[in-house]
């Protein structure tokens, strides 16, 4: 059944409608692939029985000619989305045993559109990280390795489980969330497509909150068309999220015309950092040439606030996180560590339940919001955020979209960069600005570096103009014709070798 798991989501949709195979066959192939991919540790929870039950219903619908838009398509769901009666952990110890009594709006829409759930994917704890190594459930491995080098690599993060399982052909697509780059950076590290839509395009209701003004749900898929399909299923106005935008959801697939003639593409001169490998610069230049060949006009632009985006983010995001994570108190859900007093119970529960990175960020957030420092840090960062959004607004007076590298490096080894928080934070230097400005951005796999690992290019667009972003991404994808596959493909007999150093137990 390997062939069924290698299909794109669009091809699987067409195959189901032509009765080339059934939803049950498609789901069974993916359930087997998820099992075969266990060495990657991409899932916190697998839901094979649910997948098969949903697929049976899809087959009934398909037979009656009543197929819904995502009918029978197996997806993986980041474990940040609440799923009714199914363990939802945010990869944190503090959410031990939490089974939400409700379904997130995004996943409810996916099931209503006929999609099939394979399980809940591993991530950095509370989405705080760029490597999926801060999970209580152990790190997820990237299905890619450097040829001739046996060290396991990170899949990026925080949506690393989602990215790894899609890259390894264990799911046709997956949901992720992007607060500082958590969809696009793992997409770049695993050679797939990751789309962060406009803030407000996808409801945050039922998504475990990290930084509310920055959290963006979005899709991870193997092709641009699949990302367009999946985003359409995830997006839409939701009265339960007061920041959800009351705007119609276009047919994003229809935007993939391949025609970008006359489009102006901004090339920001500030998207370069010290120590960035020359091959990323080379790939970026190649990207510019590809778009030029397709009839677009590259325009050099300046986004002078770029270097301040990351430090501003590391005030705003921890501040919001410290407030959002106050709810984990050992009273209403999850872990409780008993104490002699209420205060002691709170303190012991939160000390035991939060990992090192989460504790660090909650403490930074508490500090920057505390009396005497609020103006100096938090208000200052919010002013800088205004300037970052202004940079983009100025640029979009001259250009229709912006092309940049997605990340300043390819995937690194598990354990690397874990000693220095700032080295880890720098992964997101090119992705954070679009989160702060709330504008759509996509990562498209564009090539391999010298060590044989995938690199992505990023297209950033105007608010609510995902269509232009998709259109340009489609052209980029076709020009790059990225056909390389990871060393580990789920269930493929020739793959794997010794990938997956073994089962990861919670620490």
């Amino acid at each position: 059944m390997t062939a069924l798991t290698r299909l794109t989501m669009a091809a699987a949709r067409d195959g189901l409608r032509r009765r080339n195979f059934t939803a049950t066959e498609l789901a069974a192939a993916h359930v087997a692939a998820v099992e075969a991919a266990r060495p990657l540790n991409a899932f916190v929870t697998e839901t094979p029985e649910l997948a098969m039950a949903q697929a049976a219903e899809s087959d009934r619908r398909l037979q009656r000619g009543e197929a819904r838009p995502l009918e029978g398509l197996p997806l993986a769901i980041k474990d940040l989305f609440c799923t009714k009666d199914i363990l939802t952990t945010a990869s944190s110890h503090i959410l031990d045993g939490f089974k939400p009594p409700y379904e997130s709006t995004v996943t409810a829409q996916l099931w209503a559109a006929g999609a099939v759930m394979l399980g809940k994917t591993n991530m950095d704890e509370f989405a705080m990280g760029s490597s999926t190594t801060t999970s209580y459930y152990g790190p997820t491995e990237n299905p890619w390795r450097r040829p001739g080098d046996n060290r396991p690599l990170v899949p990026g993060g925080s949506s690393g489980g989602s990215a790894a399982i899609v890259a390894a052909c264990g799911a046709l697509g997956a949901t992720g969330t992007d607060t500082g780059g958590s969809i696009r950076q793992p997409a770049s590290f695993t050679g797939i497509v990751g789309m962060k839509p406009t803030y407000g395009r996808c409801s945050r209701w039922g998504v475990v909150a990290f930084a509310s003004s920055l959290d963006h749900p979005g899709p991870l898929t193997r092709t641009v068309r699949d990302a367009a399909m999946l985003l359409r299923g995830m997006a839409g106005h939701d009265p339960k999220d007061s920041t959800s935008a009351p705007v119609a959801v276009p047919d994003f697939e229809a935007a993939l015309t391949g025609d970008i003639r006359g489009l102006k593409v901004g090339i920001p001169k500030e998207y370069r950092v010290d120590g960035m490998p020359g091959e990323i610069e080379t790939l970026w230049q190649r990207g510019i040439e590809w778009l030029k060949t397709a009839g677009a006009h590259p325009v050099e632009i300046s986004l002078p606030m770029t270097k301040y985006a990351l430090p501003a983010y590391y005030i705003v995001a921890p501040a919001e996180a410290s407030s959002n994570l106050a709810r984990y108190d050992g009273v209403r859900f999850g872990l409780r560590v008993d104490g002699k007093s209420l205060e002691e119970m709170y303190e012991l529960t939160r000390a035991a339940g939060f990992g090192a990175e989460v504790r660090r960020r909650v403490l930074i957030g508490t500090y920057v919001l505390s009396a005497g420092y609020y103006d100096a840090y938090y208000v200052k960062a919010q002013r800088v955020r205004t300037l970052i959004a202004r940079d983009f607004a100025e640029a979009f007076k001259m250009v229709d979209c912006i092309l940049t590298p997605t990340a300043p490096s390819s995937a690194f080894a598990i354990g690397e960069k874990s000693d220095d928080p700032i080295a880890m934070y720098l992964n997101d230097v090119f992705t954070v600005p679009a989160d702060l400005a709330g504008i759509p951005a996509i990562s498209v796999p564009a090539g391999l570096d010298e060590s044989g690992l995938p690199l992505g290019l990023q297209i950033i667009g105007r608010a609510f103009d995902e269509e232009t972003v998709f259109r340009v991404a489609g052209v980029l994808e076709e020009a790059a014709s990225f056909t390389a596959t990871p060393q580990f493909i789920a269930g493929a007999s020739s793959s794997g070798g010794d990938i997956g150093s073994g089962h990861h137990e919670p620490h």
Partner: protein
Amino acid sequence: MALDKATVAHIATLARIRLSEAEQVKMADELSHILTWIEQLGEVDTSGVEPMTSVAAMRLPMREDRVTDGGRRDEVLANAPATAHGFFTVPKVVE
């Protein structure tokens, strides 16, 4: 800004996270390192710039002030570590 151990102990109390002495020392180091890096924002002239309060250019929607949901006591309690008689239970607060 270098944070000392006492400041870290204070914010850990505000955040209700118990830290050992050793953790306070380590955290003081790490947070000082991060805050020093963050302080490059001081280079940016933000005089006359409004702080961003909402990333989306929209007004928050209003609705009628009436109950839209409720009556879900058992669902609300279902995930609690400890409950009794339809309530959450916590260590004794009042003697």
